[in-house]
């Protein structure tokens, strides 16, 4: 099942290990992870809480250095973060002191674009924030903040989007709406996406492939292809079957 061996995987993670040292004890968190993501592919990472998903994503995006192994992007070893891959963090990082528009323009600083506000406003309307360009983040709802964060990443046209549980704080209805928006955007602008989620249905809704991670120290425990064409019906028997299989890997009998 593992789509391996593609010589030019967009993301190529080879035997990455990471432990955190604290007062004499060393806590192994990532234990020899191998994974590849093809250009334009959407991969979901799912695993128990505290298993090391965020740590793994930080290693891949370049915010942490592996103790062992290496991460290659387009065949080149990744050592530090770059705007080629934008990470949408679990806690959110929209700057509270800038307006929505200023946040969206942030990544364009230093670029030679003539119409930065135009680009920012375009993406604001794509994620449904038209009319809120001059608002400050504290004037937005939680769902709007998440959409602003997504728009700020899209503005710089990153080749890779790293998303750490981007929609988990939202209610089911808002989560579904943003997921559909995301699919619409991804159909227009091809991004490679790596997304962490707790939600099996969300993974089946969005991803081309689902990687199930083991408890800490984490490894890739199972890989599932999601062969359904968009738009997907999560109630179809095939989708339900896949959901049960993924849940079983997570140790839940549904």
């Amino acid at each position: 099942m593992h789509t391996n061996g593609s010589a030019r995987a967009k993301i190529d993670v080879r035997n990455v290990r990471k432990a955190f040292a604290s007062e004499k004890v060393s806590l192994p968190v990532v234990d020899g992870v191998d994974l590849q993501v093809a250009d334009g592919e959407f991969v979901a990472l799912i695993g128990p809480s505290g298993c090391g998903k965020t740590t793994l994503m930080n290693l891949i995006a370049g915010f942490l250095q592996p103790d062992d192994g290496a991460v290659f992007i387009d065949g080149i070893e990744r050592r530090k973060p770059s705007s080629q891959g934008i990470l949408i963090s679990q806690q959110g990082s929209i700057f509270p002191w800038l307006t929505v528009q200023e946040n969206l323009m942030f990544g364009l600083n230093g670029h030679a674009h003539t119409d930065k506000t135009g680009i920012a406003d375009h993406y604001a309307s794509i994620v449904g924030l038209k009319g809120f360009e001059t608002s400050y983040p504290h004037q937005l709802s939680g769902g709007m903040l998440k959409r602003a964060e997504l728009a700020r990443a899209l503005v710089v046209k990153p080749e890779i989007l790293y998303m750490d549980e981007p929609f988990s704080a939202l209610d089911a209805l808002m989560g579904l709406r943003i997921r559909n928006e995301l699919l619409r955007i991804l159909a227009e602008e091809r991004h490679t996406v790596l997304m962490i989620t707790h939600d099996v249905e969300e993974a089946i809704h969005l991803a081309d492939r689902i990687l199930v991670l083991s408890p800490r120290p984490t490894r890739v425990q199972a890989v599932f292809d999601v062969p359904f064409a968009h738009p997907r019906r999560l109630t179809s028997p095939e989708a339900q079957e896949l959901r049960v299989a993924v849940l079983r890997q997570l140790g839940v009998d549904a």
Partner: protein
Amino acid sequence: MNKLTQSLPSIGVLSLLLAAWWIAVAWSGSVIFPTPWQVVTGTAELIRNGTLWLHISSSLLRVAAGFGLAVALALPLGLWMGWVNGAYLTLNPLFQILRPISPIAWIPIAILWFGVGNASPVFLIFISSVFPMIVQTVAGVHTIEKRYLRAAENFGVSRYTLFRQVVIPAVLPQIVVGMRIGLGVAWLVVVAAEMIALRSGLGYLIMDSRNAGNRYDLVIAGMIIIGLIGLLLDGGMRLLEGHRLVRWRYAH
């Protein structure tokens, strides 16, 4: 309307105090301690002969000079110390030793270095307000949440953009708090500094009124004016806290 009812209790307390003061002076038959009315007529006299404005403006100018110099040094230094850990480790111990020294203890040195002109009080104001502002600015930089710095790093912006759009706006609320503390201290210190050998200022007014014929009505008039101006200065700094650029900090 609501504001009026809110301030009624404090107006009541003030009136009671005034009444108690008046009655106490009348009953004791003191010839030196003035009644509230004598303070009012004393103030009117100062206004009429023009000396009140002279004293107020002298004090304010000294505060403006000393405080302005302190801001000009404390903000860049605080940002630098907050950002560059080596600078922090080198300078912080020194400032932690200098900070608890009362500005009054600097008076002999101020006189030695700057004589008895305007430079001495300006120096004392500078010395007393610069440390709290440095400390606040450094703390502001140190408490910037990591997720924001990481996001900025992710977008690969220049150092200039990082400072202008992330570090400085993130620290600005703390800087404003530091400036409010600094200005409060500066106003406390100017009065003390003017009590030595100067010919103008509200501190001088108080000392001179006592020395030249026990004019305690003018002493108390000076004290009340100092209090009111201090209140106004603090109110001005509070207005800054409501500014668009720092309001996000208090909006939760």
